[in-house]
């Protein structure tokens, strides 16, 4: 019995806390993607996924935020119906919206790095609004750049055609999501785990 126990290598308690949050957030993005509203102006549906990408970066920071999104992509690839309109499968990752999906971990990491200035998390009340807005805008640019470039390539459209259908129509919705993300973290009811 003793030898058996000694071989157990427990996951550190602070890692467990961050990991559990990352996993639940990944599931939450799946819930947000359940109802994709098809949007007549674009070949991509309007969903709330991006809002949770924002929150992942803000609340979990660059490492665990990015991990959470990577886990989201892995779960979808493994057959958990977390992509828009309850779809799943590796095919979606290579499909026409694949560029957006691959951008999520990068966007979350970017937000985390800008807002927390590194891997130790800061109290979000100490971060100026300008920095938060700047981080969210930068992440949004990454998401749409990757989304449109990939779409133009995989569907053989010109880049400009892709941008007009895959980026521009979403700008108003994106502003709403940014506002919501800021309101949520400012409400103080969800705070980063800092130790």
């Amino acid at each position, binding site marked *: 019995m003793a030898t058996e126990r000694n*071989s157990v*290598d*427990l996951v550190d308690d602070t890692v467990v806390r961050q990991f559990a949050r990352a996993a639940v957030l990944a*599931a939450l993005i799946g819930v947000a993607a359940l109802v994709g509203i098809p949007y007549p102006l674009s070949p991509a549906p309007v969903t709330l996924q991006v809002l949770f990408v924002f929150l992942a970066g803000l609340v979990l920071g660059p490492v665990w935020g990015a991990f959470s999104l990577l886990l989201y992509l892995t779960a979808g690839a*493994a057959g958990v119906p977390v992509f828009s309109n309850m779809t799943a499968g*590796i*095919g979606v990752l290579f499909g026409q919206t694949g560029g957006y999906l691959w951008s999520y971990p990068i966007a979350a990491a970017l937000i985390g790095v800008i807002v927390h200035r590194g891997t130790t998390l800061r109290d979000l009340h100490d971060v100026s609004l300008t920095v938060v807005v700047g981080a969210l805008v930068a992440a949004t640019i990454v998401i749409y750049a990757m989304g449109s470039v990939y779409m133009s390539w995989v569907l053989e459209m010109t880049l400009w055609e892709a941008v007009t259908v895959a980026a521009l129509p979403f700008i108003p919705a994106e502003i709403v999501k940014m506002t919501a993300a800021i309101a949520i973290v400012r409400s103080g009811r*969800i705070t980063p785990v800092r130790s």
Partner: protein
Amino acid sequence: MLTYEPDETLAHRLDPRTKLAVQIGFAATALAHTTPRALAVLSVVTALVLFGARVSIRRTLVDYRFALLILALAPLIAGVTLGSPWFDTADAVASGLASYRVLLILLVSAAYVRSTPVRDSRAAIQWTIPGKPGQLLGIGVALVFRFLPVLQGDLRTIREGMAARLGSERSAVDRASTIGILGLTRAFDRADRLSLALQARCFAWNPTLPSLAFSRLDYPVLVLAVALAFSAFV
């Protein structure tokens, strides 16, 4: 909804790693080729895969209907030009062929989803990705699978909890923000309780992995996967 269904098909009997390899090989070559001839060959492969997993094409197309809508739109968008001739048929055909290969990739992955329980995917991840990242991704997939319905249930009970005390009398904005913030705090509370549960049950870096083994069936299929991957370069 397209999900795993227990069955005895050829695809169900394959090791999940083999099936992952086939999908990746197929996607690689499909992304590299849009000639009608290549697409014809890939269509045959797709048909075989779907047959091997006994996937109903009609049902699958219904599940991917939103994606299909988009794939159908793309050639139109590509074809439209500002100014004469207003519609460029060559552009539209090129985009149409490109869209078609995306459809094939989606169908092949549908065969995986239909034939592979999440538990097998988890095992494949833990066996394939080395070290701690592989462990966390593997367990994480199982947790996402568990929490997806739980969080949906939370949203339902929040709405019911509000309705029972006449929350319906509040403004739409007030209601939406209450549901949003409550949904989030509840999810994070769940995460914090989940971490206690994991700790209490000895969550470790080196657990016993779910067992996986290649059978004789897997080897020819693996060869096919490698062939598909290499064909991306020809």
